[in-house]
């Protein structure tokens, strides 16, 4: 499922909304999450999962092709941890 397919599904569930409004709604949701992560904030969606940012220290890596040492700069990476309900749902456990 892509973002546009997601928008179509949400639009189908909400026939009273204009398609372009559904588009704005879905975009607003992901934009809010992106902006939060950009600030280093955590996004916690109970039952679904949590997005956070992890810090990775600089390290000496290797170019796998040549074997030469390369300095990998420190960086911040987005991270997602699946929520319990979603994890159970993936394994067909029915929520009590």
């Amino acid at each position, binding site marked *: *499922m*892509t*973002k546009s397919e*997601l928008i179509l*599904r*949400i639009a189908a*569930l*909400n026939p009273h*909304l204009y398609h372009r*409004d559904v588009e*704005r*709604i*879905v975009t*607003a*949701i*992901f*934009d*809010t*999450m*992106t902006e*939060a*992560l*950009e*600030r*280093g*904030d*955590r*996004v*916690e*969606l*109970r039952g*679904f*999962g949590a*997005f*956070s*940012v*992890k*810090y990775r220290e600089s390290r000496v890596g290797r170019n796998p092709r040549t074997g030469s040492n390369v300095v990998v700069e*420190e*960086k*911040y*990476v*987005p*991270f*997602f941890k*699946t929520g319990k309900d*979603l*994890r159970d*749902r*993936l*394994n*067909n456990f029915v929520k009590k």
Partner: protein
Amino acid sequence: MANETITRAHLSNSVYQEVGLSRNESTNLVESVLDEIAAALARGEMVKISSFGSFAVRKKQERVGRNPKTGEEVPIASRQVLVFRPSHVLKDRVNNYLTKFRVKLTKKRGASGPLQKSARIVPSAHTRNQRGLS
């Protein structure tokens, strides 16, 4: 900065401000977006959100694990796990902003064990000098 937790309430507030819907309806829309994603994943589908990232379901084989406390061998049944791959756009935005402002995310160990994140801003050169640090 950098120590707030964004929840469903924040997301529905964004929806509320974006389109002229009631708060109640905004909340329901956030919920149905999350639910549609979860449903697609439960069907085994991959979910790709452009400029955000993609979620994919990965099947894990059954393997023999070990209770780290007792050293006892325990079978771990085959299961499905979710992997999130952030898009390059998201990775770059997160990295650029935080590197620029040198936000330090520090690891703290909570009482119950799992790693918790809190963040603080690294003091500027000026404050460091005043404290005789740098």
